[in-house]
């Protein structure tokens, strides 16, 4: 993570935020008449907005602790690869909840909200922000009631796993929350953050991509399409480059 607090990362963040500002006021989202030539604008692009370092943006301190503990049980650390917490999955979920995903951006949120069949899709008025807020609180509450007053993050790994397994199996019900579907959501989001581009705060230093052998944000395999059953030799690269591309660090991967 240190690499990204260096000058390159800061400059890029600045550029990205400037670009985002320009986009919101440019003509890209407003109606235009186009005739005579393709509508080109210099720097008219729409680059991704990087997750910022720093404190939680959505979670409270307690929620953040619970989320990190959850991330580390969904993806436990091992000798070769960090767990969900150190890989940044909780940060990823936090930034996603603070952003468009949490706000149900682009979703149809008009009433009425009627409970339907599962195959008709989610009909949730509160969206992911409410599901996490309620779910993490209910998880801590259930643990305190059953595990000697301890919150989820303070349990041993074995007890954490036992609690989660019981929620998954429907044996432990969380108060006021569908525990099973909350845990399924957390699994999905933590694993998504682990495998997404590091620009969004998870998959730190491309830990997950190195682990599975995915070469990342590359764009040309012409030389490799015909080379069958040979290991691809190049290391992964992300949209924010690779640690050794920055000038202010040791170059270690």
């Amino acid at each position, binding site marked *: 993570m240190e690499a990204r607090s260096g000058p390159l990362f800061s400059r890029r963040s600045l550029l990205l935020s400037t670009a985002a500002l320009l986009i919101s006021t440019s003509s890209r989202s407003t109606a235009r008449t186009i*005739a005579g030539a393709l509508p080109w604008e210099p720097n008219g692009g729409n680059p991704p907005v990087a997750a910022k370092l720093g404190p939680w943006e959505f979670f409270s301190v307690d929620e953040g602790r619970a989320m990190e503990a959850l991330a580390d049980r969904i993806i*436990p650390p091992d000798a070769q690869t960090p767990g969900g917490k150190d890989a940044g999955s909780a940060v990823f979920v936090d930034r996603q909840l603070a952003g468009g995903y949490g706000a149900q*951006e*682009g979703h149809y949120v008009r009433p009425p909200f009627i409970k339907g069949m599962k195959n008709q899709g*989610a*009909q949730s008025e509160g969206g992911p922000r409410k599901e996490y807020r309620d779910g993490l609180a209910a998880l801590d509450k259930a643990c305190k009631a059953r595990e000697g007053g301890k919150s989820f993050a303070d349990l041993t790994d074995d007890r954490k796993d036992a609690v989660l397994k019981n929620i998954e199996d429907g044996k432990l019900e969380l108060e006021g929350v569908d525990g099973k579907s909350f845990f399924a959501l957390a699994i999905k989001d933590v*694993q998504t953050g682990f495998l997404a581009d590091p620009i969004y705060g998870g998959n730190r230093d491309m830990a997950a991509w190195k682990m599975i052998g995915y070469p990342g944000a590359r764009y040309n395999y012409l030389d490799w399409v015909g080379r069958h059953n040979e290991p691809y030799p190049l290391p992964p690269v992300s949209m924010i480059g690779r640690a050794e591309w920055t000038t202010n660090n040791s170059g270690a991967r």
Partner: protein
Amino acid sequence: MDYEQFGSPVMARILPKKDVVIIGLGWTGSVMANELTDEGLDVIAIERGPWRDAPTDFPPSQMQDELRYRIRHELFLRPDQLTFTLRNKLDQQALPMRDWGAFMPPNGVGGGGVHWNAEMWRFLPSDFVLKTHLTQRYGADFLPADMTIQDWGITYDELEPYYDRFEYLCGTSGTAGNLRGQIMEGGNPFEGPRSRDYPTKAQAQPFSHTLFAKAARELGYKPFPQPSGNLSTAYTNPLGLRMGPCTYCGFCEWFGCSNYSKASPQTTILPVLVRKDNFTARDNSEVVKINTDRSGKHATGVTFVDSSGEAWEQPADLVILSAFSMFNAQLMLHSGIGQPYDPKTGEGRIGRNFTHQTISSVNGFFDKTKFNFNPFIGSGSIGMCIDEFNGDNFDHGPLGFVGGGYVGQVQTGARPIESALTPPGTPKWGAAWKTAIKDNYLSTVKPGTGVHGSFYAYRDIYLDLDPLYKDRFGRPLMRMTIDIKDNEAKQNRYLTDKFADIIKAMGATSLAKTYRTAPYDATTYQTTHLNGGVIMGADPKTSAVNRYLQSWDVSNLFVLGASAFPQNAGYNPTLTVGALAYWAADAIRNQYLKKPGPLVDA
């Protein structure tokens, strides 16, 4: 804002009249605009979404972003702008699709052509005369009682020159299987005769795709490369536009191509079209109504709303409705053109014979010490397929169903969020999950839409306006009533089992096999091949448009797209959609403009 007021002279400001107004600047709108501007007509295209192009919207520095484009759907229509409600049966409460799942409709210039895979399949000759063909071969009683399949009113031979035109526009890479009646080694022996070879040779195939072909061949099938709009080599199309060879980056399906290698309106038409003096486009402007005169039989133009909420009326002599298929049906209903379909009586034109695709897949897990697939190497329409089980290429008599599809290893890459898979029985989280994705990512075959089956039409599968839910303008949403019928479930089980046999023969140590079953599920992706609702045909009682895609009700209105399909075949729809657009354009240029009015007597 009250949509009922749109179109009233008080609300909408009136723009200068054009010869032609085109609703939607995707594939069919672009084809039609280019043809009609060549005819010298003054054409305006009105597009609901933004202008999109590679340098601004999908440059190579940012397109490899699975989270943004695939998971969060950035290039697609967003449901808050417009969505659908869904129910499986007539007596159910339909609920809105609040986020996309089963399909993801396009938005913006280029339409679905921006983020499609570019599979370039022709339908079989028998697909166009389906009802007649199946009835003759198996008898009318063989078909389910509620099945409402129809002939198209056009034959394969009539459409062949237009298939050829769209293939050459796109630079299609493939291996011919039937050249003017002669069966060619290495191609699809079941395809209809083609008048000439593909414009470019087939794409190179990665390891797993090649291995699938080998296993299929050993089982006695005739595998061939999937015809592809991702090009194997550089190509200059008939409009003089140049495309580059595909780099197999694996970000094609649901992504825009940064490399000018995927056929799209942007790469094959728009740079030429936009330079013409007699063409204008409006983006971020949504057509809310096709206006008609008092007789209701003549369109006077359209009303659209721009991004500031202002309504405009665009008068025109000829209206081309070329939005995505379901939006065509929706705009017809909102405009009061054509009698809405009623599933109880079976009468009415708009909304009938709504169909999708019947998709399933089989994932294969291989020994990682022997197989390294580098699965991230791919293209949108890469793949080796077999067609033995498509359409009526096999005897359905003993099987008790009709229809079929191609099956193949058509894996488009291995974006890790969706492609870090685990073998059946693996826990969904924890150390075992982590170890399993590590051990399997490089040695898993994940074909995606590996079983690509037909979806035939039924009396109670249709589109109409929802009585409860409204869009941002206060217009009723379109309601889908759709389910997986026994015929399609049987078809899918048969094909999936055949497909699994081939994956197993490739050497897989374990298989994850998923059948498509009822109820129709809004939450799992199945393709965005939604069809029907404004279907073509020879009989005005059971179709909305004639064989030239001209409205039976309003003769200066043509409705393009997969909305015209009377039912869906076991192939991807776009090549047929493109061919029909050229076919309709030809009819307008050579028949309609000489004598405006109905091209077929009702």
